[in-house]
């Protein structure tokens, strides 16, 4: 008679290739970037140890202090535009009506385009001579129509383009999450005579708070990737009006070949990016939340 031997358990070796690979290209770079920030390196040859020189130079670099401000402003503006609109349109798109399904299919179209494609479309669309501003510029008090070349407007134009690009992704998260909300909650509220706005505020928003946090963290961490859009649209200009910190890092590293100094800026970016997300998670008490279905 055969006794039931428990199934064999896979050992660490099964995960070793993935871990080694990820260690080399994902985790080691974090340590290496800290090391490089303590060196002078022009991209060729070997990095030379210079101690804290790069770090001492950071506070005196106008592009770092100003860039930090622009980065935070851009991140804050993106969060403040993307989050409420994604929440509103995402829950709207969660309805199963035919019109909503058709509209959503259009809403999601920007998801199909790469960052480069989106930046280039908008750059052409905002062209002062042949684009939209050449026609509507005079109406909105911008006779030369040069939106991206205007110190005070360029940043807002970038915020709009990033909203256009990233809103569908966050809508998608909210749409999926809103469909999970039990309809009994809404039925009960309707019996109590709650208005649609009250139902949205007292049922939808609290039920979606996990999604709000996840989406917010993604926006904060994702603000690093905005650098590609800025590079393609304004390259930090006009002047330094849109020179965000990641772009400064890229320019220092790959245009000026001051890789050691650029690494110090990079470490700053890692700290800010992770710090902001941790702050959001802490302030909103994500860790303390136990049940997503509270009140059920």
């Amino acid at each position, binding site marked *: 008679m055969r006794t039931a031997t428990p199934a064999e358990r896979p*050992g660490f070796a099964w995960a070793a*290739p993935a871990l080694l*690979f990820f260690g080399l290209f994902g*985790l080691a770079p974090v340590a290496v970037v800290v090391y490089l920030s303590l060196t002078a390196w022009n991209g060729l040859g070997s990095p030379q140890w210079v101690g804290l020189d790069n770090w001492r130079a950071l506070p005196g670099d106008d592009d770092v202090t100003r860039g930090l401000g622009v980065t935070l402003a851009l991140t804050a503006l993106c969060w403040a535009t993307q989050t409420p609109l994604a929440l509103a*349109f995402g829950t709207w798109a969660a309805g199963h009506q035919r019109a909503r399904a058709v509209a959503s299919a259009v809403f999601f*179209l920007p*998801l199909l385009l790469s960052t480069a*494609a989106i930046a280039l479309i908008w750059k052409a669309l905002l062209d002062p001579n042949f684009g*939209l501003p050449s026609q509507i510029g005079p109406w909105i008090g911008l006779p030369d129509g040069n939106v991206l070349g205007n110190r005070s407007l360029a940043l807002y134009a970038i915020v709009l383009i990033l909203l256009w690009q990233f809103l569908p992704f966050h809508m998608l998260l909210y749409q999926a999450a809103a469909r999970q909300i039990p309809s009994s909650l809404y039925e009960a509220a309707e019996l109590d005579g709650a208005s649609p706005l009250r139902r949205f505020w007292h049922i939808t928003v609290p039920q979606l708070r996990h999604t709000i946090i996840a989406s917010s963290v993604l926006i904060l961490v994702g603000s690093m990737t905005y650098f590609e859009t800025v590079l393609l649209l304004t390259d930090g200009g006009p002047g330094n009006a849109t020179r965000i910190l990641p772009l400064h*890092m890229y320019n220092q590293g790959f245009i000026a070949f001051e890789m050691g100094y650029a690494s110090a800026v990079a470490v700053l970016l890692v700290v800010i990016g992770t710090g902001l997300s941790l702050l959001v998670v802490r302030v909103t008490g994500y860790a303390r939340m136990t049940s997503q279905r509270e009140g059920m």
Partner: protein
Amino acid sequence: MATRTRPSVGGGIGAALWLVVVAVPIYYLLATSLRGPGDYMADGPLALPDDLTLDNYLNVLEVGFLRFLANSLVVACGSVALVLAVALPAAFAIVRGRSRALRVAFLLFLLGLAVPAQAVIIPIYLIITRLSLYDSLTAIILPTAAFTLPISIVVLTSSLRDVPGELYEAMALDGATNLQAFLRLVLPLARPGVVTVAIFVGLNAWNNFLFPLVLTQSEENRVLPLGLWSFQTQYGTDVPGLMAAVVLSTLPIFALYLFGRRHLLGGLAAGFGK
């Protein structure tokens, strides 16, 4: 939300406005790509193109666009294959294994979710040049795969956790080894997760701009997003040509959207859509 059948007026108006904001650039993209070069200068940006032409598309194909397309395909397929090859066995071990080392490994992958690729691009450049891989398609594939690996592992482990332990026990009764369980049980059952991961990784590789920008140089190894950029720098005034190039670069993804919308959207929101 199935019970909310009453039309929401506020939502409807807002959605209609946003529909216009989304549609105008898309319309501009398509209309401009079909305009003759003279028409582009003469007509307004939103005028209906009166004289449709496919010349822009033909021009773009002549300046080496197919090469960029092929490179992007290689990078996307290579990244997907590499991720699946290492992530599937790892996910199997993380879900079924009992060792402490595996739990630490999973924790490291979760930690890796927080590392922004942009901020470590300089050490990646260092590693790639030290491996003598600079200016090759492999140079793009390796970091692309590494930075999509954590989410892939999260997606695959969560889809494998749903496999009941009895299935493994039943296979063990028949004397199956780990490898047999992996091949005959895990691979077939992980299919939905594999589709999600493949789309997520593939799209990331297809759209990535930073890694090719920093890790490649020659035209021979140029991928689509860089190709679009260099087209713009080289033929800056040929906006209709550029728009045609953008449309061509998006066609494969658009086809995916038409024929597998659910899978595509699932892949886009991989790991977060739950």
